[in-house]
């Protein structure tokens, strides 16, 4: 009986008073060290006692690990601890055999990452060849891309976007941090323009081609 009462007291306390921020930092440190997968702020808060604010503690923790052997990394809206990349030479045994991606798959991945959300037709327009089913399947299987919302164009085609796994794999905080993204956008190279093939038909039918700004996706 006494024990139950005690426990109740503790949980009552924690209901009203969150642990000090330094203690929250310790907790997040423990949770992130224990898991291999990135954890969202929401998931962290759920694991921690009532009243904790993982977001604030994470900022402190990230600073604390700057320049250390392992770093706290932000991946999308999730967080994970990863070894510092300059120490990769120590990890020969942990090296994962990665599947060699074909040139088509790499290009398709890059196009999806930089232009997302893109339809298959968009990808084909940019590469000038049809996208083989296997290429897309492989990227989906690797969980680097997934289906996004359907586009509001005739036929409502499906779109592809990159996943959190993609960000995690390439150590990206968000799709906005893709290398050279700003320059590409500034050069207008991420805007969709009608392709030559479409021109041919446009010459006949005078079809209106909808120009959609793709950039808002990166603002999310």
């Amino acid at each position: 009986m006494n024990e139950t009462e005690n426990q109740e007291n503790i949980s009552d306390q924690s209901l009203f008073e969150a642990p000090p921020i330094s203690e929250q930092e310790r907790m997040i440190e423990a949770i992130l060290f224990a898991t291999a997968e990135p954890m969202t702020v929401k998931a962290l808060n759920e694991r921690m006692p009532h009243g904790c604010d993982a977001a604030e503690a994470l900022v402190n923790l990230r600073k604390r690990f700057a320049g250390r052997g392992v770093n706290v990394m932000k991946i999308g809206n999730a967080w994970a601890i990863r070894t510092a990349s300059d120490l990769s030479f120590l990890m020969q045994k942990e090296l994962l055999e990665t599947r060699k991606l074909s040139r088509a798959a790499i290009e398709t991945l890059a196009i999806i990452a930089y232009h997302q959300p893109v339809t298959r037709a968009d990808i084909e327009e940019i590469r000038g060849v049809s996208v083989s089913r296997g290429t897309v399947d492989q990227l989906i299987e690797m969980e680097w891309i997934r289906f996004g919302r359907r586009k509001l164009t005739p036929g409502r085609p499906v779109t592809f976007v990159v996943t959190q796994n993609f960000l995690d794999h390439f150590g990206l905080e968000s799709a906005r941090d893709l290398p050279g993204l700003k320059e590409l956008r500034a050069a207008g190279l991420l805007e969709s323009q009608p392709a030559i093939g479409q021109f041919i038909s446009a010459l006949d039918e005078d079809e209106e081609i909808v120009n959609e700004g793709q950039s808002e996706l990166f603002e999310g």
Partner: protein
Amino acid sequence: MTQLDSPKNETLEVGERLATEALIVDVDGFEGPLDLLLSLSRTQKVDLLKISVLDLARQYLAFIDRAKELRIELAADYLVMAAWLAFLKSRLLLPPDPTEEGLSGAELAARLAFQLERLQAMRNAAAQLMARDQKGRDFFIRGIPEKLEMVRHVTYTATLLDLMQGYSRIRTKDEFRPFVMDRNNVFTMEEALTKMRGMIGFAGDWTDLASYLPEDWRKDPARRRAATAANFAASLELAKAGQIELRQSGTFEPIELRRRCDW
């Protein structure tokens, strides 16, 4: 992989350039007409923004002609592109016709240049992406992840309905008899068959089917009905098997049976 590198062919000598133009008729090496165009464009000493689309169209058409001479099968999209470039070339060469609608030759050329530039940009981006630090190659995840232990707290509950049903279940247990078919007054065809098989051997001549009814099945109407039906079905079975013959002189007349002689 060299395709992914930024173009360094700008320093190519004229001789090499000609060689590239004339000799690579290996369509297999290209991923579609746009890729081919991009490769051809590298032979021009300018960046893609300042490319001469007219020269490029000429190069492409020359390439296609050469491929045809060599009787290389070309995919349809290469030929479509060739047709389009021929059209573009004529537009670029002829003075613009003010009555004609649509984009001018210069505008079309700009679009093509844009497409080539965008494809090249995507290839560079892909190369940059793959050159990034990658998980499992340059940085690593936790080697000994700790399992999240699940602690169950079970609370049991019941409703008033459960309680009352439980009680009524106990109190009516004695009334309860599992449902079974009441077989007291059922004479099965199998029984009839067994009985009749034993009897037909002794009856030499035509006998009434009714006489085969067992003694204790004759009085009670329910039992009599059951036994008659079973006997009738059994007699049909025996006739079907060729063991007996059946006859009936008229509707509702007695059914008679006898053993077949050849049996």
